[in-house]
């Protein structure tokens, strides 16, 4: 392993590996202190950033942070690295890459061409040198467009995952939240339920129900029940209609093992999903969730900082051409991201790194009640994501997930971004909203229809 020295302010700092430089260069967060890998002082942190800035990108191809022999994610990263794509920046250091990304040489086109040439560790490294405005400005240049039954990720648009969770998976309760969300213009990224139970029977019932709703109301969107990939394969084997295949993933082989998956299992899930041929506009059908701290919480971080581990998960994701990737930034709790400041920065880092690597990034802008965060922090992060060009956010009634017991963005929050930044839903869904008389959007302003859409009036009639 390489040793790195940096002298500044009359002090000489020594770092014994690339992983140590990366960890100590990371902006402060509780999870890195918990892991014992954070810089011991602010001075050491900046010295590590200066050290990192001087390291050639090519060095990342020589020093694997987790040995090639020991970890299939490392093998995936190295084996799938695209040298010709890398050529555009292969002469640069990490600091030079930051300057290049901010320069006019980095355009939507050149960044798309570069993506397969960057490893996750390069992306993580450069993000550690970037301020919030840099993370936003570069991400904004990038567009990653994916298609299944609609088109997500186009410039000027932001989609929402309607998340109609219910503490006992009660169908009428789920349906009530779905209707509420649709009538607030939510759900173009997907109708996606986190089930309370993991029984395959109830999973299949939920999939059939979501498919029925999408068909009955001709909604140009897709469905997902967020269960283990092996359960999705089982549902597909039983002939149940399944659109998106979900799985939580992490950036090390051992952390993925703690989720009960590996690359082979994910491949099987991907192929099972493709076999159904349910996408009408495209075949992006994997839906991955990630989050800083997951590798550490599985004690599978190999002494790396949590943001570097997180970025390595994006190598796993991009191998399967996902429809969406969601960093669930504030869910894991204050031992990994302590407060609003840490959550906001981590969310923007994940979005930037994911986009830079060519992923359709969204974010669960969220927090738990034991974190030092509140709605104001979420408003700030949401606003920044709108500017950064995020593909999708969550949408839930009144920000309150009554099953998972955390707070995420609401149907109203998405409308706030539409009003304040003029961002529209996916084009196919926008047309559906207009056709149904739910709302139209012109010059940024959202104008709701005066009456309940007739189709939904019929569903509601017997309730009265």
């Amino acid at each position: 392993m390489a040793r790195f020295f940096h002298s500044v302010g009359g002090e000489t700092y020594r770092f014994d590996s690339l992983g140590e430089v990366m960890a100590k260069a990371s902006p402060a967060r509780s999870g890195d202190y918990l892991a014992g890998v954070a810089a011991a002082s602010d001075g050491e942190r900046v010295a590590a950033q200066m050290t990192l800035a001087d390291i050639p990108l090519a060095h990342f191809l020589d020093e694997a942070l987790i040995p090639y022999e020991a970890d299939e994610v490392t093998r995936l990263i190295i084996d799938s690295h695209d040298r010709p794509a890398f050529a555009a920046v292969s002469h640069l250091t990490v600091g030079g890459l930051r300057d290049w990304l901010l320069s006019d040489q980095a355009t939507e086109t050149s960044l798309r061409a570069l993506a397969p040439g960057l490893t996750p560790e390069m992306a993580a490294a450069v993000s550690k040198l970037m301020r919030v405005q840099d993370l936003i400005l570069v991400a904004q240049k990038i567009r990653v467009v994916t298609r299944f039954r609609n088109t997500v990720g186009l410039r000027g648009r932001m989609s929402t995952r309607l998340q109609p969770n219910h503490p006992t998976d009660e169908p009428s309760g789920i349906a009530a939240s779905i209707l509420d969300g649709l009538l607030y213009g939510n759900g173009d990224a997907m109708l996606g339920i986190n089930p309370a139970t993991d029984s395959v029977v109830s999973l299949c019932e939920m999939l059939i129900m979501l498919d029925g709703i999408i068909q009955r109301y001709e909604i140009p969107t897709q469905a997902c029940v967020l269960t283990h990939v092996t359960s999705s394969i089982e549902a597909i084997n039983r002939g149940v209609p399944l659109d998106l295949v979900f799985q939580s993933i992490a950036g090390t082989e051992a952390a993925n093992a703690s989720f009960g998956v590996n690359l082979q299992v994910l491949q099987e899930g991907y192929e099972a999903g493709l076999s159904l041929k349910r996408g009408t506009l495209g075949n992006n059908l994997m839906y991955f969730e990630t989050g800083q701290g997951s590798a550490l919480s599985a004690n599978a971080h190999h002494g790396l900082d949590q943001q570097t581990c997180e970025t390595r998960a994006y190598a796993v994701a991009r191998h399967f051409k996902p429809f969406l990737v969601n960093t669930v930034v504030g869910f894991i709790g204050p031992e990994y991201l302590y407060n609003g400041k840490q959550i906001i920065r981590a969310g923007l880092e994940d979005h930037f790194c994911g986009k830079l690597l060519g992923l359709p990034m969204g974010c669960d802008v969220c927090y738990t009640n034991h974190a030092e965060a509140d709605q104001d922090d979420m408003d700030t992060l949401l606003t920044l994501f709108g500017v950064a060009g995020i593909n999708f956010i969550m949408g839930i009634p009144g920000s309150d997930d009554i099953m998972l017991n955390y707070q995420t963005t609401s149907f109203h929050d998405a409308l706030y971004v539409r009003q304040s930044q003029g961002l529209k839903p996916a084009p196919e869904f926008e047309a559906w909203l207009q056709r149904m008389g739910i709302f139209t959007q012109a010059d940024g302003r959202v104008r709701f229809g005066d009456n309940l859409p007739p189709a939904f009036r019929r569903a509601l009639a017997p309730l009265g």
Partner: protein
Amino acid sequence: MQPELPVSATTENPWQELRRLTPARIALGRAGTSLPTTALLDFQYAHAQARDAVHLPFDHAALSAGLADRGRASLLLHSAAADRDTYLQRPDLGRRLNEASIRHLHDYGQANPGGVDLAVVVADGLSALAVHRHALPFLARMEELANAEGWSLSPVALVAQGRVAVADEVAERLNAKMVVILIGERPGLSSPDSLGLYFTYAPRVGLTDAYRNCISNVRLEGQSYGMAAHRLLYLMREACRRQLSGVNLKDEAQVPCLEATPAGMGNFLLR
């Protein structure tokens, strides 16, 4: 000429009837496209309650006195997390006892050798409120059942700034065959006082969650004391019979999750 009536700035949703189908915050209406003031403040109050529950200090003394009233002894312990800020950022410290507590348990063990069937531990966890409200009535119910079946119980170990796994260390030092910990769960917006129970057979330091069985959401709006106690006694009998706990010990006493709808209507969108 009639004076013009002021136009309301908020729009109500005509689907408010759906609220009886779910505790979710649906049909909130809108001011422009934003939350109306009432809905906004309802949310802020719920969040404030949850925050207050997280930061409420653990009232050792009141619980100890309440137990003494029933002739139950208690042991006052503290985890290695000195305060709430440390507790929230260092889960590893919340899983271990501090030095004074280790000495206290050591002295107790010297004076009371022989061990027990079940060590009973209570920790504040993420909601002291849950413990203050539900620990004593639940324990009264549970002990009634346990005594009837002849199980021997330890004094109640009250652990401040404790996490679930701290129960393993307490139980090991009390030479207990099994342990149950009553702990405040992470508060949700609508559930600041939810109590969780974690049960382990053959507890020892270093076990993971895979060795534990959980009985969650014990509170007035959730699982009753009686049902939770019934489940715990079931787990104790089965664990002793099969000599294990955790993922391989399914809670067959559990009632199915998918119950009939309150309104009996199912998915009304597909009628």
